């Protein structure tokens, strides 16, 4: 049996990204930073998709993570990135654990629609909360990293970038371990045949619940990192089109490997930034056509291009 090269690749890419960071032009650094944030969210989506459920409301946790981080800065004047991330993780874990109690009973389109309703509830609340900037959102300044002030120093950008790379690595490594664990393998079994999994003595609802919480926390981390990187947040992060984009990138990437979401997110963000620059009114059209092509000809996503011809491990 061939050794699985995923983990070595993940480590190598993370080290390379950290090493080339200082010499990257600003735009490339930002692009990589934002795609990695996105990739972490899609990594969580991938876990749900492997479990056979699709959330059309993951913008909820993306937004919640970002607002948890932002509120710390805005209201409590705590602007340490490490604290912000911890707050984002706690907030998303608590909310998803509670909502998961309901969602675990739902499947297919009902799971998608109920999660969409929850995310639109947050959107509806934030749009009307003037203390948090209503529909304009607000700027956030993450000035410290674990107690050390980085704002205004030459390493300010690099610190944010390195933080994202670090978290992307941790998220990827964790997910890789998790997918190969007992729980992780149950996910695919549930997607194939839920009833058989029940007959064999595993609780489908528990697995869905746990995976939902994990994917929500990942979305929260991605949201908080994106908020730190961009420096601005608004309720649009919880709007259904944001969640639709996550599903889109998930389908585009495929669920075969933890590297797929990062690759898919990078391609997506690259297309988006260039399309915004050169043809702002046709980029959604390009996305739509790409999506149709992927659904029709590459049901396994872009990742299946790499595994074609050989048996998936």
């Amino acid at each position, binding site marked *: 049996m061939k050794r699985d090269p995923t983990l070595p690749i993940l480590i190598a890419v993370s080290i390379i990204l950290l090493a080339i960071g200082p010499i990257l032009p600003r735009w490339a650094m930002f692009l990589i930073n934002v795609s990695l944030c996105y990739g972490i969210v899609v990594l969580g989506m991938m876990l749900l998709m492997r479990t056979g459920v699709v959330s059309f409301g993951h913008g909820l946790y993306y937004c919640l993570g970002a607002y948890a981080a932002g509120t710390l800065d805005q209201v409590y004047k705590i602007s340490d990135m490490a604290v912000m991330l911890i707050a984002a993780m706690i907030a998303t874990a608590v909310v998803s654990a509670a909502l998961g109690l309901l969602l675990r009973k*739902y499947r*297919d389109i009902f799971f998608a629609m109920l999660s969409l*309703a929850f995310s639109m*509830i947050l959107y509806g609340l934030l749009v*009307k909360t003037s203390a948090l900037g209503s529909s304009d959102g607000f700027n956030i300044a993450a000035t410290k990293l674990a107690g050390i002030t980085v704002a205004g120093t030459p390493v300010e950008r690099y610190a944010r970038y390195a933080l994202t790379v670090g978290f992307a690595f941790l998220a990827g490594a964790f997910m890789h371990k998790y997918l190969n664990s007992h729980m992780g393998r149950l996910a695919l079994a549930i997607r194939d045949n839920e009833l058989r999994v029940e007959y064999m003595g595993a609780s489908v609802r528990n697995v869905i619940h746990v995976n939902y919480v994990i994917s929500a926390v990942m979305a929260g981390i991605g949201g908080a990192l994106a908020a730190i990187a961009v420096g601005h947040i608004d309720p649009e992060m919880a709007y259904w*089109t944001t969640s639709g984009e996550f599903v889109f990138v998930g389908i585009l990437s495929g669920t075969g490997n933890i590297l797929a979401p990062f690759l898919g997110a990078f391609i997506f963000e690259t297309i988006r930034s260039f399309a915004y620059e050169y043809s702002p009114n046709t980029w959604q*059209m390009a996305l*739509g056509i790409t999506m149709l092509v992927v*659904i029709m000809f590459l049901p396994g996503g872009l990742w299946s291009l790499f595994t074609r011809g050989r048996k998936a491990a």
Partner: protein
Amino acid sequence: MGQLLAVVIDGLNYSSWLFIIAVGLTLIYGVMKILNIAHGSLYALGAYSAASLGGYWIKHGYPPMGSYAVMLLAAILVGLIAGPLIERGLLRFMYGKDEIVLVLVTYAVFLILEDFVKLAWGVDPYFIAEPYGLLGNFTVGRLTYPNYNLVVFGAAVFIGAVLAWVLARTRQGKMLLAVIHDREMSAAMGINVGRVYFITFTVGAMLGALGGALTAPMISVQPGIGAETIVLAFAVVVIGGLGSLPGAALAALLVGIVRSAAVHYRPELDLFSIYLVMAVVLIMRPKGLFSAQEARKI
């Protein structure tokens, strides 16, 4: 008392609008099991076509009353062109795929049409307010409403009644019900299922475009109206039970009244209230208010 009356009237206005945008969606889902996100784009296309055709009509000094007919025509044209194009050109290759995959396919169509609208009409808003004020006003107590609201209400009742009549009383309607009940069996009995799908989708598309055309005089027609509307239509359809006509009517009424009460008493809960209703209904009745029991399949 006056405020309560205002809540009811505003609620009814909003409910009629909700019903019109949701009825095509629930029809398509009921027959084809496709939750059609592109319905939002058809709504936008209808609104834009109505705004530009109606605007053209009024600008050239034709009798303003004719603008209603022109706007209706615009909606029918959009339905007749876009509906068959989407169904024949794309969806028919997708039948039999997973429901979630079908949602994504229509999401892709939605993205494509969003940009099509921007390419065809630009990103500046369109206004066609004339038909809104043309019919005069009616007063209830101390409140004045444009009669156009009655047109929307009438349209909602008319559409609902016609659909109910077609489904219950005509041969085509019974064939449709047979297809909803069991697609394979009805095909075996000689019903042309492909044609039923084709007609259903076209009619659904037309209803979506009609919703847009009716709304155009009340709003500024601009990019993003499709995304805003489809998610409301989702809420209504899911609350009512996917594919149920009476469900959509009841859900539209419920959501309309709740939202209007929220707007009058607690304006900050405006959008929130709608999705709260959706979440609560889904929690109490996972498949919506009106839904058929399904046998568990292994």
